[in-house]
């Protein structure tokens, strides 16, 4: 285990420091490097080889999602064209991998699988990253307010947090998309595809955000409760620093570690949630390319066309596994007490 404080490069003990024998001349300068706790943690993280591999995998999937149009163009296909000429009369594709269809084509509909695969990385990552950002902002603000101000604000926010955490999230996630269309003013039974697609996307982000902020708020509140009794906060208050500044300039920098740990552990859970809900049929809908949808469609063809099922299954599993291991490593790097 390396030292926590990496401040001074101590001189080798062998050199005598006795005044009589010390060589005359100017005293040797001691090189010091100042590092913030975050920098120390990041340095520790960089040395963690597993974490770096996982980060690489995450970046790889982000690049796939960002450059999806380019990759599809490189292959020369898109996500919606139906290649019915390559489908036999039983609905099975007559080709496997060709230079035109790198991962083959879908049974029955004949859409290109490679294009749907690279585009399918997008909704997972967009939903997960948006929700993580929203929950982080809302959770931190609520936690800060509740912990710092106390009084009735604290009581109200704490009650809401307890309430949200005691609700069955999955049931609401199923129920919300059913009503969100009619809340927006359309009858769900006659709405067209683009309306449904948009409302489902919105519903996913709303529901996941609504249920995601509470645990972070509770965590931040606990941290703030102990931090606000410390001298530097008292000093800031005595100096007449406005509350807003105390919250965001004094308290927030001390909360960086728990926030980073909590968000990095939450990100993979939202990817799973998006894929899982879409798999159940309550998330995103056709014709949006999404791994959850592909898995759901592929279950009927798992014997005839295993790759159709296994590509999105492996992609989601690897992405989520890498992200959770990365989250664990980040936690270990930022919080030395939990080191394994």
């Amino acid at each position, binding site marked *: 285990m390396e030292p926590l404080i990496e401040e001074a490069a101590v001189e080798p003990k062998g050199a005598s420091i006795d005044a009589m024998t010390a060589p005359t001349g100017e005293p040797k300068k001691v090189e010091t490097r100042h590092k913030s706790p975050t920098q120390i943690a990041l340095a520790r993280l960089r040395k963690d080889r597993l974490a770096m591999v996982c980060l690489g995998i995450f970046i790889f999937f982000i690049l796939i999602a960002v450059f999806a149009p380019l990759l599809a163009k490189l292959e020369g296909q898109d996500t919606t064209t139906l290649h019915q000429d390559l489908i036999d009369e039983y609905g099975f594709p007559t080709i496997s991998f060709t230079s035109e269809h790198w991962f083959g084509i879908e049974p029955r509909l004949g859409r290109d699988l490679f294009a749907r695969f690279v585009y399918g990385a997008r909704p997972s990552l967009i939903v997960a990253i948006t929700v993580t950002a929203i929950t982080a902002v809302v959770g931190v603000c609520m936690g800060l307010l509740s912990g710092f101000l106390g009084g009735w604000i604290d009581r109200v926010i704490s009650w809401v947090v307890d309430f949200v955490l005691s609700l*069955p999230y999955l049931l609401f996630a199923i129920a919300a998309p059913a009503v969100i269309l009619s809340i927006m003013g359309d009858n769900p*039974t006659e709405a067209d595809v683009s309306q449904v697609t948009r409302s489902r996307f919105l519903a996913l982000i709303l529901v996941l955000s609504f249920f995601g902020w509470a645990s972070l708020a509770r965590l931040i509140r606990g941290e703030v409760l102990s931090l606000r009794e410390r001298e530097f906060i008292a000093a800031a208050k005595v100096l007449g620093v406005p509350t807003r500044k105390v919250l965001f300039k004094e308290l927030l920098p001390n909360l960086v570690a728990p926030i980073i740990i909590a968000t990095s552990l939450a990100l993979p859970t939202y990817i799973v949630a998006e894929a899982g809900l879409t798999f*159940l049929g309550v998330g995103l809908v056709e014709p949006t390319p999404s791994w959850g949808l592909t898995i759901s469609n592929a279950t009927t063809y798992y014997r005839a066309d295993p790759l159709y099922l296994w590509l999105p299954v492996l992609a989601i599993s690897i992405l989520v596994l890498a992200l959770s291991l990365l989250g664990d490593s980040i936690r270990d790097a930022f919080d030395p007490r939990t080191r394994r």
Partner: protein
Amino acid sequence: MLFYILRRVISAISVVIVTVVCSFLLFFAAPHDPAGVICGPKCTPERLKDITNSLNLDQPVVEQIGLYFKGIVVGRDYTAGGVTRHCDAPCLGYSYILGVPVTDLLARAVPVTLSIVIGGATIYLVFGVLIGTIAARVRGTTLDKATVGTSLVIGSVPYFIVALVIALYATFLPKSQYVSFFDNPIQWAGGLLAAWLCLGLTNSAQYTRYSRASMIEALGQDFARTARSKGISERRVVYRHGLRAAMTPVITIFGVDVAYQLVNTIFTERIFQLPGLGTRIINAFNQYDLPVLMGGVIVGATVLVVMNLVVDILYTVLDPRVRLG
């Protein structure tokens, strides 16, 4: 103690009531035309009028909620297609699409969900604690590291993917189906075996880690040292003295987990095609059957709140060190 329990019960009831009000607002007050949604695609004007009348959708929202609560306490009548049906007390609404009270519909699904969760929970509690204890005994060895590593990997792969792979490829298991335990216990167990194994496998990983950590802590305490110094065999120290102390936190997590699984077996039921609460809810979603969806949400929230309450109270009994704040 009595005061603590009373306070917890009151707060639990308040959470359930707020949940009912919130979900009522979400399902019946927020949509522009709830009657039209409930009525479905082949809607006749008479049917629409029936629905509006028996749900009192033309009255103020406060009155509608009051009537809903009244239905839960004493029951209420619903008119559909000229026939008036009485929905018994705890009435959670009436499914116009299926023509049955929501309470009956959900009550029929409960035994399925309960069977899945009880079977699965038995498997993962037994295996998780056993493997965790063994890993704690051989702490630091390759076996221990392999166990922890495997459990991390299994725990990180999304649950629905594990379930799907088991359902598709473990064809040597008996076909997944639900037969009532009282009709034929053997078929009951056989039909649910795949779902149990799936739930058991994924959660064993988690419980292995919990009980390993808890066991390591217990075995490091003074009483374990005293027991060893008396000359008792290591096996007895671990399974008699250590296990008891190590189980309290594990049992607490177990109680909460069972509650969540009762509400969240949706993936298991959907993938193994078992007609439990989750399947019911998904079907209701596909038909935009708002009363059933709302009933499901209320039942789910109540189960969670009650189980949490029970676990909290049991915990204070099990572990006297817990301070009642």
